[in-house]
């Protein structure tokens, strides 16, 4: 490559120090990779749910469900249909069946689960497009989703077996449908069966899970919504499909903040690496920089060469980061699919690409500004003197600035992450994250003062262990306190993020485990797949199945329990804030040891026995 400009010189110098440049860029690769991966993942999740919401309720204006996952009474449908302004209403009950393999064994993986809706095809609540066969009519018939059918080689006329709340059932494929917009449930099966058949095999003789409504006046759904809500009462929830999308977006936001925080930290550390590396480069090249000045290069030209080098490192790092982010997103989507979470194909938005590229280049260039300015300030006389006497001692101003950033960062940032201060929405989140970043900057700034004493302490055993090597190591570490401190600070930040993350996770899991161990005196809990205490939605277990379990010779005490999340009266919370458990007082005491407040255990159980 012929050298034509001073910028070319920057590139040439990078090429001769490939390893250094690569390591410098690594921080950017990781940072951009995380940011892009997160953006892609979030975008894909959103896209998937938009598609699902659209195909589930695309033709509906309102969706009625019971509060907190309960069941709507049987007469709700008639009441809704009778309401003025309702043009059309259709209802369904849903459940999750487990597919059985050819040997009659349940397919345990999440991919063995299929979500089944029982509804009357004459008034389908769904925007399904029939591809083959016909809709379900009566008896053990099922209409299945096309992707799932293709993956399992099921055709119209085939039979398949499932485990249900009442035991095993065989269903015949009568139709194959596609979701509108090509959405997919990510490997999870989706089937429609006749409502009567659903009531039988789900053991749900009456009631509805969901009623969807089309308004006569589609322009003013709000009025109908208020009417229905008033008509049906507080135990019922009337929402538009858009609100489900918004609810989801809100739930995702909580996750996003955490994800964005970690990508932000990755970028921060990446920027820090660049700052540190370029600072060192400037120090090492001080004679060359001085020489360029004697040859007539201006300050601005020197600054420019450093920035160009940073920009190239940043651009290369960003490109690789995009690739890494793509791989990361694909891996995460694959993992989510493995867990059976509904997620569609990767959706790459232009916004995500642009945001990742801008962020990557910006971080690099911003991080390089300070070293570039330092390079520009190198005096021509450095061509003669080299690096002699340029070493700076950390200034007290720096330490003060460090403490000034550290203290509020620790207090407010800490409050945000630990103290439950993150209820204030986006502003609080941004503030909390900014404070935490500030804290990291504080760590970096005050590091020369904290690292050096530690180093002196470490020097004693190190010298004893290896007199020559130890001495050399300590000398080179103490030789440039600012550089040593910067390196140590970068490590500190990276490690602390890791540690905090894993401590949080493990202590959270530990708490949960303790709670479960303490409260549960039972040996086994049997519940229907897809519903459970954690989701607040419970699919019933048929009495026949319970009796079958009780008859097992190994079973001691077998007691039924129903539970659901409830909205405690007199509280202002918008989400469920209580958990109600219905049990048989005679037996429940033997399977649960939860602490009871306000009364002794005996009293409480006796009280409920008396009430029963």
């Amino acid at each position, binding site marked *: 490559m012929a*050298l034509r400009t001073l910028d070319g010189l920057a590139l040439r110098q990078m090429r001769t120090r490939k390893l250094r440049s690569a390591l410098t860029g690594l921080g950017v690769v990781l940072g951009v990779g995380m940011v892009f991966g997160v953006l892609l993942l979030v975008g894909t999740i959103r896209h998937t749910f938009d598609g699902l919401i659209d195909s589930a309720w695309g033709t509906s204006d309102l969706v009625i469900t019971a509060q907190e996952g309960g069941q709507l009474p049987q007469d709700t449908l008639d009441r809704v249909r009778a309401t003025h302004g309702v043009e059309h209403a259709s209802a369904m009950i849903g459940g999750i069946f487990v597919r059985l393999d050819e040997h009659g064994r349940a397919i345990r993986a999440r991919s063995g689960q299929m979500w089944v809706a029982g509804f009357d095809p004459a008034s389908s609540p769904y925007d399904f497009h029939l591809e083959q066969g016909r809709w379900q009519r009566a008896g053990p018939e099922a209409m299945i989703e096309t992707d799932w059918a293709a993956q399992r080689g099921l055709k119209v006329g085939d039979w398949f077996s499932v485990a249900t709340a009442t035991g095993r059932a065989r269903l015949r494929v009568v139709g194959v449908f596609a979701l509108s917009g090509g959405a997919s449930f990510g490997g999870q099966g989706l089937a429609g069966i006749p409502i009567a058949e659903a009531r039988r095999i789900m053991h749900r003789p009456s009631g509805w899970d969901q009623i969807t409504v089309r308004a006569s006046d589609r322009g003013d759904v709000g009025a109908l919504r208020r009417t229905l809500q008033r008509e049906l009462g507080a135990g019922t929830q009337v929402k538009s499909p858009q609100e489900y999308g918004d609810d989801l977006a809100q739930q995702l936001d909580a996750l996003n903040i955490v994800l964005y925080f970690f990508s932000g930290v990755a970028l921060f550390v990446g920027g820090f690496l660049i700052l540190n590396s370029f600072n060192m480069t400037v120090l090492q090249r001080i*004679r060359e920089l001085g*020489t360029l000045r*004697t040859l*007539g290069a201006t*300050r601005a030209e020197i600054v420019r060469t450093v920035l160009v080098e940073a920009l190239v490192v940043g651009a290369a790092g960003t490109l690789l980061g995009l690739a890494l982010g793509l791989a990361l997103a694909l891996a995460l989507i694959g993992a989510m699919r493995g867990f059976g979470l509904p997620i569609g194909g990767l959706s790459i938005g232009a916004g995500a690409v642009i945001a990742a590229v801008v962020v990557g280049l910006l971080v690099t260039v911003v991080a390089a500004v300070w070293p570039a300015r330092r390079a520009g300030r190198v005096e021509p006389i450095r061509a*003669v003197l080299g690096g002699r006497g340029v070493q700076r001692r950390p200034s007290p101003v720096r330490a003060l600035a460090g403490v000034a950033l550290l203290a509020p960062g620790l207090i407010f940032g800490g409050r945000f992450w630990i103290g439950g201060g993150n209820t204030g929405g986006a502003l609080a989140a941004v503030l909390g994250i900014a404070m935490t970043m500030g804290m990291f900057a504080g760590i970096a700034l005050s590091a020369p003062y904290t690292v050096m004493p530690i180093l002196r302490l470490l020097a004693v055993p190190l010298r004893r262990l290896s007199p020559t090597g130890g001495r050399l190591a300590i000398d080179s570490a103490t030789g440039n306190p600012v550089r040593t401190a910067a390196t140590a600070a970068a490590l500190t930040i990276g490690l602390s993020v890791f540690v905090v993350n894993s401590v949080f996770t493990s202590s959270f899991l530990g708490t949960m485990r303790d709670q479960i161990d303490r409260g549960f005196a039972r040996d086994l809990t049997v519940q229907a797949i897809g519903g459970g205490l954690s989701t607040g939605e419970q699919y019933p277990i048929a009495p026949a199945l319970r009796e079958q379990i009780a008859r097992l010779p190994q079973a001691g005490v077998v007691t039924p329990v129903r539970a659901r999340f409830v909205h405690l009266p007199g509280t202002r919370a918008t989400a469920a804030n209580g958990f109600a458990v219905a049990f048989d007082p005679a037996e429940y005491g033997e399977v649960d040891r939860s602490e009871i407040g306000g009364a002794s255990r005996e009293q409480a159980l006796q009280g409920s026995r008396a009430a029963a």
Partner: protein
Amino acid sequence: MPDASPPAVEIQALEKVYGTGTAATHALGGVDATLAAGEFVAIMGPSGSGKSTLLHIVGALESPTAGSVRIAGRELGGLDDGELTRLRREHIGFVFQFFNLLPSLTALENVLLPALIARDTGRERRTRARDLLRRVGLEDRAEHLPSELSGGEQQRVSIARALLLSPELLLADEPTGNLDSRAGAQVLALIRELSRDEGHTVAMVTHDPSAAAIADRVIFLRDGRVAGGIAGGSTQAVIDFYRTLLPDGEDAALAVTGGARAGG
């Protein structure tokens, strides 16, 4: 006094003080000197005599505490950083003791570096760069990196680089200080020859009498002042004059060094 061509360098009452208060060191204590255009002047003096400081101030690498320097009639005092940069780029060439080549650039690219900085990398410059490399005897080394060249070869590249843009003034700071005597002699001969052919004014700091002897004139500094000057040409004359400036204990050492160099 109107004059068609002012002296290449005019130094008046130049002072340089490093540090302040009790720690202050007077590197230069009022130096006056004039270099005629096209003249080759060697500056000699014992360590700490201020000879390097003088050269750095003339080359606008350092600023004086007091006094004035004029280059081709232009006063350096009062020029801002940008103007000094342009002065260095357009009028001055430097040759350093440690060569100061950029390690990632080939010999040819190093020679072309000033043109690169001046944004003037046309065919003419490239031809001149090749010519200069040929004149310093390195045409077959054009694509070599500095790490693949000997010290003498590196210094020859740096001479070619200093002369690329044909500056009026060539400043050499101990150009042979890091070379063996044979390579040193070669480098000196090249500086002499090229500057004579192209009409450059040369100021060279050295502590080597045989190096100083190739100059037209030798200026001696002691304790930051001019201690005298003689015409160049004879190593022995330089040694003899230099000896008169030194305390008794040091002249033996000089005789040995000077003798060794002169004999090379």
